[in-house]
């Protein structure tokens, strides 16, 4: 008899507080939008190559890597030189934007304590 087991990955239930907090002011800023756009591009670059189809659903082989953002192992492996360059540029841009947001929030926090919580 075929047995199908449905398991709640309730771990996701454990997330509510995972500091999924976005700095209050940053949420509306252009920088945040820029960062989101860059991160999206990074995911696209990381998730390089078209998904292979098997049956009617898209499929991708992670080749022994752990799960991470973009569906790969977090490393931009197997990219073309152009993709690699784009990935590195995006990575630098993201880091720069993160630093800018952090500095601005620190400044805001000094002016208005609690404003970025």
């Amino acid at each position: 008899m075929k047995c199908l087991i449905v398991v709640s990955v309730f771990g996701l239930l454990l997330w509510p507080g995972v500091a999924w907090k976005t700095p209050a002011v940053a949420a509306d800023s252009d920088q945040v939008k820029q960062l989101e756009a860059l991160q999206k591009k990074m995911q696209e670059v990381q998730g390089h190559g078209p998904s292979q189809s098997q049956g009617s659903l898209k499929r991708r082989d992670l080749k022994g890597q752990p799960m991470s953002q973009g569906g790969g192992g977090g490393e931009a492996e197997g990219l073309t030189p152009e993709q690699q360059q784009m990935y590195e540029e995006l990575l630098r841009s993201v880091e720069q934007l993160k630093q800018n947001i952090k500095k601005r929030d620190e400044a805001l926090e000094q002016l208005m304590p609690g404003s970025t919580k």
Partner: protein
Amino acid sequence: MKAPAVLTGLLLTTVLATGAVPAAGGSLASMAKDQGGGSRFKMHFQGSTSDMHVGLIKVDPAAGKVVLEVFAKADFTEPMWQQFIISMKAERPAIEAGYVQVGSRSPMTLTAQHLAGTESLDVNMFLLTEAELRDGKQKNIQRVGQEKITIPAGTVLSTRYKVERPDQKLEFWISDEARPIGLIRLVSTGKKTEQNYRLELEELLSGLAAKINPTKAVPLTDEVRKMISAPTK
């Protein structure tokens, strides 16, 4: 404006399909072919979307166990992995141990209280066999019927189920084509903000490896404990 918390109170249903062998060990042996398989979902919550993956990391027929791992990442947050060891020895599966890893911190052991569930949702409600799904033996879960639905991963024939609770309604769609996880879509609606979210399959994954090494797990720190919601028990 206070930015919304992301990925709050998500309930993800994972389906493991096993073979046609009556003995638990035999069933696991047939399940082994799905080892390394998983699903990548996109979660929609309060206008935000987040990446979320679930994988069947390991199937150990000899030990009567399977290992599931979950990855989640929202914008401006640290990535989180959770791993669950599920015993298949008894008639019904049971969570034996769980671990969490946030960012580059060491993996940490989840307490029994955390494994029991959070936010008033009983984990055991979602530990089901196919027979229970088919026959509706498991309380609260109703089989709505078959539907052909289109999600980002493609169009697929699925079975729709629903769970209605006083303050929350869960609907989920499961398809055999999405093995080993099986979940195609999940929609939660409720009175609380964190109870309203939607999950859809983006693509199936294969060749997955574990991120968390349980042998390196340390006790849950206060910092990470605060990151996860309070257990129900």
